[in-house]
């Protein structure tokens, strides 16, 4: 699928076909895309656990639910639990198992080198003690991690590109720790619930957003970034900007899908 259309097709899908499984190969594609996401000092902050709804017991599924994710847990056939590994920086520095800044491999492969003022000695004797190691003594720190979020976002786009529907929602941290046996140093980022959509591809239209100019600025924060209408039109043609929600038939679609799945629905009064 074209990249712009994939981005434009993103919906927080709420209605999955519970009987249709997601192919394991497609799950791998999602993980491969997440693995290649940009990340600071080339360190693996992102971790994810794949769980299959039908491989979990009803009691285990209950432990994963939050008010936001209860229906998703019941209807999505695959869950990806994304985590921020709070211990990743320490492991990168102390164990040096992977090609990270700390291991010196980024100088070796020419990613960072003399043209940027970097050398092995700079990494080992200056960057490590002055930049990467301070704060390690305090132990793992919660507070989220942009790189784990980036990996998840890249995986999300890959899921859409594979023809799947997805919804990101929080999951119960304590319950997931019990079911998934995660280390203490893994901080939840978000659950990615995956499946095939029960509603139409437009699924209610593109989700509304605040005006572009209220979110993005140029040169300084009081100067909105003015849209070029020609660019906007081109993106509409490419499928990145689509018909906004709701489409006229959305209400009927929600009722029909809810009936099909046995979810609560409110029929119009005669």
């Amino acid at each position, binding site marked *: 699928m074209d990249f712009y259309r994939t981005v434009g097709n993103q919906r927080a899908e709420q209605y999955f076909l519970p009987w249709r499984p997601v192919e394991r190969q497609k799950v791998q594609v999602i993980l491969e895309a997440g693995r290649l996401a940009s990340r600071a000092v080339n360190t693996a902050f992102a971790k994810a656990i794949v769980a299959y709804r039908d491989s979990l017991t009803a009691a285990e599924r209950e432990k994963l639910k939050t008010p936001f994710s209860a229906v998703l847990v019941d209807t999505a056939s695959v869950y990806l639990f994304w985590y921020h590994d709070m211990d990743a920086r320490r492991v990168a520095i102390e164990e040096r198992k992977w090609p990270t800044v700390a291991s010196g491999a980024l100088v070796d492969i020419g990613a960072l080198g*003399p043209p*940027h*003022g*970097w050398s*092995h000695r700079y990494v080992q*004797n*200056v960057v*490590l*003690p*002055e930049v990467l190691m301070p704060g390690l003594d305090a132990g793992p720190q919660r507070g989220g991690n942009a790189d784990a979020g980036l990996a998840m976002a890249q995986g999300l786009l890959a899921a859409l590109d594979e023809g799947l529907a997805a919804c990101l929602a929080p999951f119960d941290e304590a319950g997931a720790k019990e079911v998934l046996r995660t280390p203490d140093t893994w901080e939840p980022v978000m659950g990615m619930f995956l499946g095939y959509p029960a509603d139409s591809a437009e699924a209610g239209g593109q989700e509304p957003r605040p005006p572009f100019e209220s979110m993005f600025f140029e040169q300084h924060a009081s100067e909105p970034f003015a849209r070029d209408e020609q660019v906007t039109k081109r993106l509409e043609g490419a499928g990145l900007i689509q018909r906004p929600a709701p489409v006229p038939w959305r209400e009927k679609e929600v009722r029909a899908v809810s009936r099909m799945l046995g979810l609560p629905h409110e029929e119009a009064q005669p």
Partner: protein
Amino acid sequence: MTGIDVAGVRSAESVRRWLSSRQELWGARSNNESLLETLTRFCAFAGKTPDEMVDDCLKPGKAGETLMLRTRARRQYMELVEQFEAANASRDDGNVARSFLIHNGIAMNPGILT
């Protein structure tokens, strides 16, 4: 600094480290005698030996082998390299001096040529 020549520069620990690191990264053919000649001229320009320049920019940390980058000294050497480059009208000469400092652990970030 007393009088300094190519032989004295060659024998400095920081110069041996520089050449070794360059060779490791770019191969043996990356090193040649003209590097030492240019660095010797830079030393004369700065009025410092190679080891003195590195010591000016890096001080030992509390943990033994770790080093602390002296921000102000680094900035002064970046300016000095620019002056050396301008005095010789040679970007290549400036980059030899930068290479020496970089491979000794002192990050150099010159502006690009536009």
